[in-house]
């Protein structure tokens, strides 16, 4: 429990810093002869401490301050700690604007009245976004509570050089049989075929998502996660049967590695492929430009011809305004800037410590896709091929089900795949035991 206390005390330290920052900022704007539009200084909470994204967000903050004169206090929290504390954070004295995710995870907090209605912001910047993003930003009451920043698809990642060595190409790995043949070829070469990690409890959810969508289709997947279908359905068992066929090609220490461990396997050329969200391209780029240039993504192969490759997990990250923040108007004004192409451009122009650009696929239509690098173009192709877009299992179902129930269930499946019947039984039993949503 000391961890929790540490988290809180660090937060209150940050709070102290924020208050101090506000004081300084207020002094600053007084000297500057008052802020330009009266929205004033604000605090922003970043859900990352990684170098690349931090440089991007700081560039956004700097551009906003330069434009409006409003000082922004930048508070960063490590992603997992941020998520674990979010309920308490939003009910306490949160930063005015903060980084968050679209879908159920946003709707859940919007419904509890903890997020600020951003309909006015959308009225101004909405034309810069495709309708699907507006849908993802919309709460259950039909109002918008979220401004998108970026997206990334989940797909099969591999290294072009290794693919070429194995005599493979994207066109030769389009269905399940070809996929297994590919994995077999990698195994014969002494490689891990399908790099996997699930120590964090969420990583393998992506594999479940895509297998379920490929085998049983988008509608079944969505209905299952919403509780309209049963986990005990033979269709779900079929997902695990297919998944089990991949186990021989995985690294044996799936439960010992988190996502970054699996990524290391691909980075070090010990694994031939990995199912993951493309966000980790930034980590490859930090390693070296050559590694990044070698990285490639294709859609997960077709399993059931009826559904082809029509679905993709493509989570959207972005920003919300906390209702309990000190400056709701300031938070909304900041998000209007962050969502507008002007703010997006500031993030795209940001450079890391080595002066390299930081890859980002923006949700904003204004980002010229012709400026995309090769890997980003492939990501776009993966998106374009899909008819249906899902967020991710832990963004598409109830939070009290995804983390505490599905995560451990998949981990125990990895411990003993033969227990699958028992596991789906308890999944359904625990879904049935959930309290009715208020």
């Amino acid at each position, binding site marked *: 429990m000391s961890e929790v206390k540490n988290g809180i005390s660090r937060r209150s330290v940050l709070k102290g810093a924020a208050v101090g920052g506000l004081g300084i900022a207020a002094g600053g704007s007084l000297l500057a002869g008052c802020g330009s539009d009266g929205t004033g200084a604000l605090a922003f909470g970043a859900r990352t401490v990684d170098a690349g994204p931090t440089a991007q967000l700081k560039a956004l903050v700097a551009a906003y301050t330069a434009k409006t004169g409003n000082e922004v206090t930048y508070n960063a929290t490590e992603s997992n700690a941020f*998520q674990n504390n979010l309920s308490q954070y939003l009910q306490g004295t949160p930063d005015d604007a903060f980084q968050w995710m679209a879908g159920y995870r946003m709707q859940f907090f919007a419904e509890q009245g903890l997020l600020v209605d951003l309909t006015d912001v959308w009225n101004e910047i909405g034309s810069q976004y495709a309708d699907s993003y507006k849908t993802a930003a919309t709460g259950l009451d039909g109002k918008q509570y979220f401004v998108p920043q970026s997206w990334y698809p989940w797909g099969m990642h591999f290294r072009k050089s290794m693919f070429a060595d194995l005599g493979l190409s994207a066109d030769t790995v389009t269905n399940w049989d070809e996929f297994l043949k590919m994995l077999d070829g990698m195994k014969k070469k002494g490689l891990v075929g399908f790099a996997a990690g699930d120590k964090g409890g969420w990583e393998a959810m992506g594999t479940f998502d895509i297998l379920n969508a490929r085998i049983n289709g988008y509608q079944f997947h969505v209905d299952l996660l919403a509780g309209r279908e049963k986990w005990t359905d033979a269709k779900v068992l079929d997902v695990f049967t297919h998944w089990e066929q991949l186990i021989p090609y995985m690294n044996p220490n799936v439960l010992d590695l988190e996502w970054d461990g699996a990524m290391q396997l691909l980075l070090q050329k010990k694994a031939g492929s990995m199912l993951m969200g493309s966000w980790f391209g930034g980590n490859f780029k930090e390693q070296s430009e050559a590694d990044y240039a070698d990285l490639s993504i294709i859609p997960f192969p077709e399993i059931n011809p009826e559904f082809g490759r029509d679905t993709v997990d493509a989570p959207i990250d972005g920003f919300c305004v906390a209702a309990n923040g000190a400056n709701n108007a300031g938070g909304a004004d900041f998000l209007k800037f962050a969502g507008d192409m002007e703010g997006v451009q500031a993030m795209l122009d940001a450079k890391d410590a080595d002066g390299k650009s930081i890859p980002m696929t923006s949700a904003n239509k204004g980002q010229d896709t012709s400026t995309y690098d090769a890997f980003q173009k492939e990501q776009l192709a993966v998106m374009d091929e899909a008819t249906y877009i899902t967020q991710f299992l832990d963004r598409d179902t109830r939070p009290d089900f995804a983390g505490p129930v599905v995560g451990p269930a998949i981990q125990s499946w990895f411990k003993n795949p033969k227990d699958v019947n028992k596991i789906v039984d308890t999944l359904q039993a625990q879904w049935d035991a959930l309290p009715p949503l208020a």
Partner: protein
Amino acid sequence: MNSTAMGSKKPHRRRAFSRADRTTLTAFVGVPLFFHLLLVWVPAFLTIVLSFTYWSGISISRIKFAGFANYKNIFFDTPAFWEGIQNNIIWLVWFAGIATPIGILLAYQIDRQIRGHKFYETAYYLPVVLSLAVTGIIWNFLLRPDGFVNGLFGRDIDNAISFFGNYDINIYVILTIASWRHIGYIMLLYLAGLKSVDMALREAASLDGATEWQTFKKVIFPAMKPVNVIVIVITIIESLRAFDIVYIIYGSSAGFPILGTLVFQNIAGEGASMKGAAYAVILFVLSIGPIIAYLRTTFKSDVQ
């Protein structure tokens, strides 16, 4: 609770308190009592109440009475609970059967002033200076797939020895780490106790021709009763409240379920539900039950 039970059996003595005495007593007993109730028993009671509700931890107006639903869910539908119980029991058995006896043995040897006892004392005590969380961080650095030990064996992450991910051995890895600290803790407690044992007792025992083991069993150990009680209670509590090391190594995913992490997983973050409160109540009952029982029998025999 036990001290009053004990006190009631003693013959009552009458004592007159002056007004100043009473004021002092009220201040010295009342103020700490107030804070104790406010900070310990009120939250404990509220946790018990919450364990009978459905609530996501956001806006109290949405709370709903759930009856025994959370407990029913835990006992009948949550396999992680039984895995957690199993792990906590193994933890307790290991601590009680291996770690604590080793600590006592070390204390006894060091107390006999074997050669280099000062060095051993410091060496074994050193880990106790570190918090459990720091212990977890250190061992995680050593044993994780890209850690020091795997590096030493020249193993890469694809063929690393799976200390934390292999469920046949990981509990023993975790317990070894926890014992690393626990042994030193017990040793120090016991050493303090041994120092206070009257030397005359030992001399008398050796004059009577008792062996070393007989001396320990028949003379020292019974004379150490107050320390023994503390050691037993600490062993039980440390085993049941285990959390830090597991949380540091496995995070909040409950990849290695024990009651402590199950409480956290179900009460922190977005997935918060009062199932977490129910886990906490179960943990509370399990911890306090055996301790009350043990203290009661101990003090009862004292009084007799």
